[in-house]
């Protein structure tokens, strides 16, 4: 039984990593799962597990007598949404971005990208390959080899463009604002008139779930829930997170953190609501069971 398992794992691993001209592939690493991811990336594993990590395949591209030039790590997550979550948690707006897969960013000697349910890291092990176009070519080849869509979560389209810091959008799987009930939240950073703040949103297919979430927020922050909790805007004074400007409409709940200036908030809120009402959010992941 063990032999069968090893063979099937190798076969699966081989199909993940494409051939690359002039190199042969080494599979010296086991496949990592939730139980042993710590062995590979130690404490960083917790963040991956939080984003519904499934498995990690690692391979090295070598020449000659196994002189390794590149290392490729393919982290597979439950679905594209969670893969975007882990990718966005490690992405910084200051990075140099490349169009590989859904998106990638590169630093000297390494290129990380997102495609479908996969978050991939391609690293030059050999110093002479740092910054070379070959690294990019390998990353592109791996991306083309992987299945999955190449679009960001459709919820991101709701964020107005005015003042948004490009590539600052994130998907927070859990514990948003430090509250265990506040999960599956999208955020984006904004800079307007010298003020930096966060716009966050939650989208649920069932408006009752949005209402329940808002009720829980009221209960936690203010100790009680208003009777007949209406849709519309409100301000919550959170002892930990400061003032929160929150708007609920139907399937959408969104809010602003770290900003008090309504002259900045109101136009953005109006722009977001316009996008929501005119249906600018298209579901690009039909059949994905994990939509909120």
């Amino acid at each position, binding site marked *: 039984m063990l032999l069968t398992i090893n063979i099937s794992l190798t076969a699966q691993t081989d199909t993940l990593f494409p051939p690359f001209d002039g190199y042969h592939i080494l599979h010296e690493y086991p496949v990592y799962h939730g139980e042993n991811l710590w062995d590979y990336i130690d*404490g*960083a594993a*917790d963040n991956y597990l939080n984003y519904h990590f499934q498995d990690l395949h690692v391979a090295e591209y070598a020449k000659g007598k196994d002189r390794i030039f590149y290392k490729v790590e393919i982290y597979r997550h439950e679905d594209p949404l969670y893969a975007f979550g882990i990718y966005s*948690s*490690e*992405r*910084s707006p200051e990075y140099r971005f490349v169009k590989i897969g859904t998106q990638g960013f590169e630093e000297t000697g390494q290129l990380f990208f997102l495609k479908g349910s996969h978050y991939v890291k391609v690293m030059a092990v050999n110093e002479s390959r740092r910054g070379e176009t070959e690294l990019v070519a390998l990353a592109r080849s791996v991306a083309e080899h992987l299945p999955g869509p190449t679009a960001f979560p459709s919820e991101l389209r709701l964020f107005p463009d005015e003042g948004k810091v490009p590539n600052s959008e994130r998907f927070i799987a859990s514990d948003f604002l430090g509250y*265990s009930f506040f999960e599956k939240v999208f955020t984006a950073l904004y800079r307007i008139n010298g003020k930096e703040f966060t716009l966050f949103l939650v989208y649920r297919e069932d408006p009752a779930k949005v209402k329940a979430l808002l009720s829980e927020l009221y209960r936690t922050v203010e100790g009680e829930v208003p009777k007949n909790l209406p849709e519309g805007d409100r301000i919550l004074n959170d*002892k930990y997170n*400061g003032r929160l400007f929150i708007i609920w409409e139907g399937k959408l709940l969104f809010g602003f953190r770290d900003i008090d200036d309504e002259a900045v908030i109101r136009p953005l809120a109006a722009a977001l609501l316009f996008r929501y009402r005119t249906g600018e959010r298209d579901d690009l992941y039909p059949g994905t069971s994990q939509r909120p």
Partner: protein
Amino acid sequence: MEKNDRRSFLRRSFLGLAATVTAGRLVYAGGKTEHAFPVDKNDTPSLITRRLGKTDMVVPVVSMGVMRADNPALVRAALDKGIRLLDTAHTYQGGRNEEMLGKILKDVPRNSYYLATKVKPDGYDKTKGDFTDDEKVKRTFREKFEISMKRLGIGYVDILFLHAINSRAATLNRAVQEVMQEIKEEGRTRYLGVSTHSHEPEVIRAAVDSGVYDVVLVAYNYRQDHKDEILKALEEAHKAGIGVIVMKTMAGGRPPKSGPALSMGTALKWSLQSEYVATSIPGFTSFDQLEEDIAVARDLTFTEEEKQLIAQAMRGDTLYCDACDECIDQCPHELPIPDLMRAYMYTYGYRETRKARELLDHLGVTPGACASCDECTVTCPKGFAVARKITDITRLREMPQAFLT
């Protein structure tokens, strides 16, 4: 162990807060917004503190593993509740974790907290269990450290760890020690440490022998098979004056394969029972978790219920097969015993008889599977009565579907 209220702690330790401390309220000027943290209704928190080895750091027994946190308000709340040591690493969240801390800490008096970060150089050869390229080790350690310091935006860290090491050789690697000591001599770190979450006793003892490390950070929890050996090594470290910090006190937060799972708080208390441990770095990400951990930092005594749970956890539970596969070759009929034990656990542990039935149908084991043997030849390391359990659970295949849950 010292029990301090917050005010006494602030007076006695070498830390002294700036004059901004007023009547128990700590005001941080954070960016454009000032945060004034509320004081607990029951007055100031009283946290149990311990000295970290021979260092000058006296810390609450609960510190903060920042590795997953991305909410600045949570970090500020932790500091306000008396947590003093923040732990991060070069690689956490691709560097965003250190950056986040840098943004928060620029408005926090430097002498009001301790910061630890961790760096691992390139050039580790896993087949040799050691770093093999001195030049690369020194250069990349230094490069990564400088990047970390830039992200953190502070002049020095309190502890610089060699990150995630699992062998004596790597712990004692000369090139690594040289570059770390250089950084210490430059005043960029006050102390040096090594972190490990496997082969802990080996790494701890190497740290003791090195004469270089001031602190060790180790995985230590109630579920480890070798926890007794770890504890012995911790005693040696403690006697050598090396400070001990523990992590993974919940073993990664996943339910155990056998026995009940303790709550986070109980598991954390367990890891802190030993006087050899100065503090822990649980990775909390919500205010509820922070409160639970602070409660532990105030009181390490177990309730009666917790004592029972721990005893059960230590003993293991007869429902959960470890899937060690020792039985497989012992059964003359080659029954899939671990899977059958899993079906047993589904039924009696989780009351999921439908799930158990699906598994049994898939395995195709009949109710009379054990009938032909006069005596069971399987000896289970956990003492499971294998034949009895198989006879019991396979009867589920004869139960009408309508009765299954």
